[in-house]
């Protein structure tokens, strides 16, 4: 009888040694615990330090309510505009060839590559009372900087690539055959858009909206520059948190922070479930593209 040679437990040739695996997993989990779990727990413990009554009192405070209202209003304006721009830009880029297409693709990314503070400064320089345009508007009784319109403008600027960046690859992957098919079958332009184009990109669009909403509500830098921090008027939630913190009202600051944290968690859950729906569309379209190429 042939003797089996003694050997170590079998391991596929590409697997790493156990020590490496454990070290990598421990490092990754350690980072997550240190930078995510502990801070999140800290936010809620600090917020509830003075009891649940104080927590709710901090949230229903008139200034807090004003900040929440302004934040919601800003998001309510920024998100629909973002969606409109996103659909228009992604449609144009995915369907047509036109001069300046590459430039447009690059320009869409500018808000990502510019520091939000610079973006805010830009609006102050352009629309502040000392600037010609801002001065002219001020003469006509329109205040932009240190007022709500400035906050909305700055938020739109920092969020505008979000929906477009999600939609462009999906629109390109889905292609225009289904749209052509609908036209040949007798659909008009709007019928094609609402019955074929939009349903095909809806999960990607929703995903873009979730990201845009999170950014619109959480933006600090750009908004801080144009806001002027007028309590009860031009404070959004993140700005209000800073003010409370600087006033040593830690429990209140953390109470408002906890709302933003909850928003972040909700966003994560929405993002995760939407990603699962977006991925198959991209995959299917990719498979088709491979077939066409073959």
């Amino acid at each position, binding site marked *: 009888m042939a003797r089996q040679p003694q050997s170590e437990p079998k391991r596929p040739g590409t697997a790493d040694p156990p020590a490496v695996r454990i070290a990598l997993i421990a490092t990754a989990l350690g980072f997550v615990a240190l930078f995510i779990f502990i801070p999140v727990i800290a936010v809620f413990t600090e917020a509830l330090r003075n009891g649940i009554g104080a927590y709710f009192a901090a949230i229903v405070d008139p200034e807090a309510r004003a900040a929440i209202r302004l934040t919601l209003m800003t998001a309510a304006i920024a998100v629909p505009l973002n969606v409109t721009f996103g659909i228009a830009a992604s449609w144009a880029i995915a369907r047509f060839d036109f001069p300046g297409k590459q430039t447009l693709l690059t320009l869409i990314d500018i808000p990502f590559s510019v520091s939000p503070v610079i973006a805010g400064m830009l609006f102050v320089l352009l629309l502040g009372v000392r600037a010609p345009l801002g001065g002219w508007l001020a003469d006509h009784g329109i205040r932009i900087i240190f007022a709500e319109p400035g906050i909305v403008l700055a938020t739109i600027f920092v969020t505008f690539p979000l929906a477009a960046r999600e939609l462009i690859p999906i629109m390109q992957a889905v292609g225009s*055959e*289904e749209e*052509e*098919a*609908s*036209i*040949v*079958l*007798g*659909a*008009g332009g709007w*019928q094609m858009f609402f*019955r*074929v184009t939009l*349903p*095909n990109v809806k999960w990607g669009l929703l995903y873009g909206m979730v990201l845009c909403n999170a950014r619109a509500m959480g933006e600090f830098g750009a908004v801080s520059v144009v806001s002027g921090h007028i309590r009860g008027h031009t404070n959004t939630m993140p700005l209000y948190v800073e003010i409370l913190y600087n006033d040593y009202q830690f429990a209140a600051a953390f109470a408002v922070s906890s709302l933003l944290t909850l928003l972040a968690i909700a966003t994560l859950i929405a993002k995760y479930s939407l990603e699962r729906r977006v991925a198959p569309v991209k995959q*299917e379209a990719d498979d*088709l593209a491979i*077939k*066409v190429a073959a």
Partner: protein
Amino acid sequence: MSIELRNISKKFGDFVAVDNINLHIETGELVALLGLSGSGKTTLLRIIAGLETPDSGEVLFHGEDASAVKVRERKVGFVFQHYALFRHMTVFENIAFGMRVIPRRERPDEAVIARRVHELLKLVQLDFLADRYPSQLSGGQRQRVALARTLAVEPKVLLLDEPFGALDAKVRQELRRWLRRLHDEIKITSVFVTHDQEEALELANRIVVMNQGRIEQIGSAEEVYHHPANAFVYNFLGNVNLFHGRIENGRVFLGDTAVELENTHAHAHPETGKAVLYVRPHLLEIVMKPNGKQTFPATVKSINPAGPQVKVELVAEWGDMVQVEISHERYQALHLATGANVFLRPKEQKLFVYQI
């Protein structure tokens, strides 16, 4: 509805996709546009549908200029190569789409739409799949749903872009026969694009052979196969061996040997020039002994006995590879083996001569 194309041209940048094409298609015909990819056949189909606008020329439907008629009003049905089914709709909704987008005043009511969809599903033998989504169907089923969806709007013309291109061989055969029967039943003017000569020969009443944006020949399967207008058509319709030689004072030379061949269908007859001899693999005979100037020597390189015919690959004396198909009986009788020196006798060939 008849279709008439007059002097149609279309360029994409510098690339001439369709070059001054004239074509008349009779009511009720089933026409194949046959060509390699890039020959302009799909562009021509899309021009008929109105999905592309020609740079010049006109498209006439039933004798009337259709240039100003919008795609959605042309009453054409277009079946896309990859079906383009609406992926977020069920099979039922896909087929109902064309009826649902009719303006409300003329739109049939829900009961009529449902009845019509089920009629069509029966016609394509897929009644049991009404509630499925396209991603849950096989390629052949998707193809038939795409056809049913197109027929739902009662088009006057049916245009199909590589209708069987993405299917495997067996399903393709089946669907081909099925489409033939369907066309016999509903007699709708149909044009389909294909790069598969067998498909065109089997299915179409008339075949339009296209090459580099131009029409090389129009004719029935019989005409284009047995009476090709030129070397391209002969070459394209089936396997063929090419022998490059020359013609001197009416005598054909392959390499250094003069050959005298029977049954030569020559196209153009200059006395001197470059000659290309085309012989189909099944029209070459393998013999063991030379027979004057009607045979030329060759060496057997490989033998593939799988299939209805035995495929033999040889090298001619002057170095060209030659493919020959012989029957299994003949193969047995010859006792062929790799490396054997034999002689080839063309039974029938086409000679195309070009002026130098």
